């Protein structure tokens, strides 16, 4: 087979009769014009699956098929059955599979099946190692710092290995690169909620609030750290905001509460939202809350006018 478009690698497939791709279906919609390589590779990989062959050469053929069609979940499942059968309890062989997967992952960053496949491999692995996962995670995050699947996989690993040790630091590195990285901010909340059984130590909350304030000073109009502050209060501080945090937020809203008639230039509408939220908690400060919501509605965030007006109505109700 010198003119074969299927790269057989070190294996021999002479006895495999390719399973043809059926075409000419009456009434077919979106008929795809397969190229010859596709027909050949799929023909061989599917023929092996049809025989339920669980061998090294089948694994190779599946690799070729997955390279062409990364979303082919049937082949991924077949691949897993082969790996389980051949290498199920062999750490070194499973590491080789992870090596293959690393390479594939870097070349197919948008595919999401790779991550759940990876989870299944680690769950089968007799001696899985978190550090083994870190380089590929780092490369993928470097490539796309907000990739949802990569962050989810990292969090799965952190839970699976129960290793939270470096996670806040990891998030801080990403935030240092881009203070607007919402995934990194969410990662902090994930750590607080997952590492501690409902209540993180008070000192940690203090450090986190301090860290967040510093980040806000760099870029006040940034929803992520403000969400984090509100999340910390809601989850761990009974939604009670102390004078410090109110004073802090007020630094970004100019003298809005003194001169609502002539709206000043403010530094953060999110600071104003948080103040409105806090003032709305207590009837004695409802006037201030109303002033803040009115300013958001009229000046600082008019696209959500209907919503801020709804908030004002809820106050007086």
């Amino acid at each position, binding site marked *: 087979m010198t003119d074969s478009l299927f790269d057989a690698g070190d294996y021999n497939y002479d006895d495999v009769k390719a399973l043809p791709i*059926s075409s000419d279906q009456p*009434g077919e919609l979106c008929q795809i014009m397969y190229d010859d390589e596709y027909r050949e590779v799929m023909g061989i990989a599917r023929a092996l699956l049809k025989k339920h062959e669980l061998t090294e050469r089948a694994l190779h053929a599946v690799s070729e098929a997955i390279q062409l069609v990364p979303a082919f979940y049937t082949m991924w499942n077949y691949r897993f059955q082969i790996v389980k059968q051949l290498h199920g309890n062999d750490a070194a062989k499973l590491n080789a599979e992870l090596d293959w997967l690393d390479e594939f992952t870097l070349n197919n960053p948008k595919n999401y099946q790779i991550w759940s496949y990876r989870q299944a491999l680690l769950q089968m692995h007799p001696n899985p190692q978190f550090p083994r996962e870190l380089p590929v995670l780092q490369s993928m995050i470097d490539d796309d710092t907000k990739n949802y699947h990569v962050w989810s996989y990292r969090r799965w690993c952190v839970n699976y290995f129960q290793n939270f040790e470096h996670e806040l630091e990891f998030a801080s590195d990403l935030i240092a690169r881009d203070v607007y990285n919402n995934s990194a901010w969410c990662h902090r909340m994930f750590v607080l909620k997952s590492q501690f059984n409902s209540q993180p130590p008070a000192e940690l909350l203090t450090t986190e609030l301090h860290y967040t304030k510093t980040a806000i000073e760099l870029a006040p109009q940034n929803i992520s750290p403000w969400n984090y502050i509100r999340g910390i209060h809601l989850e761990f501080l009974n939604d009670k905001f102390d004078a410090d945090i109110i004073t802090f937020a007020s630094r970004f809203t100019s003298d809005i509460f003194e001169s609502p008639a002539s709206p000043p230039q403010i530094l953060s509408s999110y600071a104003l939202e948080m103040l409105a939220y806090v003032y709305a908690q207590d009837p004695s400060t409802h006037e201030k809350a109303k002033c803040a919501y009115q300013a958001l509605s009229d000046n600082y965030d008019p696209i959500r006018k209907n919503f801020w007006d709804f908030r004002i109505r809820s106050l007086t109700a």
Partner: protein
Amino acid sequence: MALASIAAERLARQKHQKYFERHLLILPSKYQDNEPNKLAIVTYALIGLSILGVDTSKKYQGSIAWLLEHQRHVSYEECSIAGFIPSLSTNIEEAPSLSLMSTLFGLWGLICLGARDSSVFKDIDLQGIGQFVSKCQCDNGSFVSNFDVLPSSEIHRSCIDPTDLRYSYAAVTILHLIGCRKSEDFSRYISIENLIEFIKTQTGVNGGFGQYNEAHAGLTSCALSILDMLNDQWDCLSARFFEQTAEWLLQRQVSNQGAMTLMIDKNECYDPEDQGGFQGRENKFADTCYGFWCLNSLSILQAHTDVKFDCGNALSDYLLDSTQNKLLGGFAKNNEDDPDLYHSCLGLAALSLNADEFNGTLFLPRQLSENFLVPS
């Protein structure tokens, strides 16, 4: 505003129609890596055409038998199941790869091809499909989309499948499409209690739904659509939580007014030209498809919270002016990319939803969602 009353110079109907029709004809080999999603291609194109008012049941009537052929039955010791395979071309008869997603797209496609004729479902194995959905549910309430591929007398859920809210949405929607309306109908096949427990694990601190506390507009739409279909489970989370959800969703609408301009030249994922569009997560660019996911989520919530909002018209302007491709037809993800089928369908769906002509929960134009009949 009704889709039909949007001025011709604003919405390139003919171009969009041709764009969808092209996808139903012959596709070049660059599409071959989409083979496992082939029924999704078919269905996005058919739904897009239906939104535009094309009677797809007339035009593509000759394809009903072809689409039905994707339905396969598999017998196990414990029960028989039925579902759709993604492609006739690459299927292996000895190991048919039924999937929840293909089944959902297959049923949607059938409704597009024969909505006005109640007999379109007569060849559907309702019980078998219900059993398939049933067997896809995991112990924690979530769902896989596939079983292990090697034949076996017992059912083994695929352990390499993701189990996020997308598959839960697919499971519940399939059950709705085959006739489940009340809790007792759904409970014949799945544990609602476990599903609700799973959904509750997917909540974020700020009111959105997603994995590991990172809220995501697409997953939020899945969660709310499920609750909408189940209908009597809204007390699983507090009214206050859903108010937060609405606020989180409204905050996804990108604006170039007021204090938002402070992000110009600082936030690398902020573009003032995204005005009116929705982002999928905080500090991301607007994207056509999240316009649909957010608007759908908000429309569902409108019936369950007191929150008032009006974000649809600014979204429509964004879609019509920024992501619509009036030359080639179709919609792109954003104001830079080329159009693609998925964003074309979702863009039109958002416009149609804003015109109250689309059932966002079932992802079908109203004229289809209200007319298809399931034989009991």
